[in-house]
C-alpha cells in the first residue's frame, strides 16, 4: 500500500484507515483522560452536576477554553464575557482549520462539518504531520477525532463521578491545576523570540489593565492588544 491520497481504488478499506487514525490518536487519548478527569473534578467543585460536566466536555471539546470558562464562572462572570473569552481563546482553531482546509478540498460539506467538530491542538498536530506524509484522509482523521473525544469525555465522566471520593480538592493542590496547565500551554506557544516578546507584552498589559477593569475584560483587552502589536511589529 503506497500513499495515494486521492485515489480511492488504491487505498486501504475504510475500516482499516479509520483504525489507523485511532492508533495515531492513542497518545492524545492517554493525555486527555487525566486532564479530562481534572476538568470533571473542578467542574463539580465549581457547582456543575455530573450531567453538566460531561455535556460540557462532549459538546465543547476544548481543553483550555473549558478551564478558562470554569474559572470565570467561579467568579460569577456574565455569559457574554464568558463567550467572548472562549471565542478569543479558541480563535487559534481558525488558524488550524485554515491549515487543514487545503487537504479537505475534495471532501463533501457534511463530512467537513463533522471533522471540524474534533479539531483541537492535539488532533491538529497529529493530522497535519500525517497529511505531510501523504497518508491522512477524512476517514483516518475521523478515527483520530473519535478516540480523542472518547478520552476527553470519558476522563471528564470519571473525574466528575469519582471527584467526590477525593475530598477537598484544595488539599491536594487543585487550585494550582489550571495555572499549571496554562503555564505549560504558554511555554508550548512561545516557539521563538517574537512570540516570547508578545507573551511578555500581553502579561504586562493584562496586569496593568487589571487595575482598572474586572477580571475577564483585562484578560481579553491585554490579549487582543498584544496580538495587534505583534501583527504590526513583525511583518
Amino acid at each position: 500500500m503506497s500513499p495515494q491520497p486521492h485515489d480511492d481504488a488504491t487505498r486501504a478499506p475504510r475500516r482499516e484507515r479509520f483504525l489507523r487514525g485511532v492508533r495515531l490518536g492513542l497518545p492524545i487519548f492517554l493525555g486527555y483522560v487525566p486532564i479530562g478527569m481534572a476538568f470533571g473534578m473542578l467542574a463539580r467543585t465549581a457547582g456543575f452536576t455530573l450531567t453538566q460536566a460531561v455535556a460540557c466536555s462532549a459538546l465543547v471539546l476544548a481543553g483550555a477554553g473549558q478551564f478558562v470558562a470554569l474559572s470565570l464562572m467561579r467568579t460569577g462572570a456574565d455569559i457574554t464575557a464568558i463567550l467572548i473569552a472562549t471565542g478569543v481563546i479558541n480563535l487559534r482553531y481558525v488558524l488550524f482549520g485554515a491549515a487543514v482546509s487545503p487537504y479537505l478540498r475534495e471532501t463533501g460539506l457534511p463530512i467537513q462539518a463533522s471533522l471540524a467538530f474534533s479539531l483541537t491542538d492535539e488532533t491538529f498536530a497529529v493530522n497535519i504531520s500525517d497529511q505531510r506524509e501523504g497518508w491522512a484522509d477524512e476517514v483516518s482523521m475521523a478515527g483520530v477525532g473519535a478516540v480523542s473525544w472518547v478520552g476527553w469525555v470519558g476522563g471528564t465522566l470519571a473525574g466528575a463521578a469519582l471527584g467526590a471520593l477525593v475530598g477537598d480538592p484544595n488539599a491536594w493542590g487543585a487550585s494550582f491545576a489550571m495555572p499549571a496547565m496554562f503555564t505549560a500551554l504558554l511555554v508550548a506557544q512561545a516557539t521563538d523570540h517574537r512570540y516570547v516578546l508578545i507573551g511578555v507584552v500581553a502579561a504586562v498589559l493584562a496586569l496593568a489593565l487589571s487595575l482598572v477593569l474586572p477580571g475577564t475584560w483585562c484578560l481579553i483587552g491585554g490579549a487582543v492588544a498584544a496580538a495587534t502589536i505583534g501583527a504590526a511589529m513583525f511583518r
Partner: protein
Amino acid sequence: MSASYIWAAILGMALVTYVLRVLPITVLSRVRIPRPIERWLSFVPVSVMAALVATEVVRPDGRWLAPLSNPYLLAALPTAAVYHKTRSLLGATVVGILCFLALRALVG
C-alpha cells in the same frame, strides 16, 4: 451557580467554538485569509495564554500577592521548566502541583 447559567454557558461555548472550527474548514478550503489577519491570528494563542497565566499567578483570586510569598508565582517557574524540557503537559502539571503544595507549606 444556577442551572440555567451553567447550561447557557455550555451551549453558548459549544456554539462559539464550533463556529470557529467549522467556518475555516468549509469556507477557507475555497478562499484565502488576508496576510495581516493571518499574522494577527498567529499571535492570539500566546497572547491569551500569557495574559491568563500572568493574572492567575500574580494575583490569584483577584488578590495581589508579594512575589516571594506567592506560591502560585513561584510554582509556575518549575512548571514552565519541566514543560520546556519534557514537552509533557501532564508531567508539567503534576510537577507544578507538587511544587505548589511544597511552596504553599513553606511560604503561603
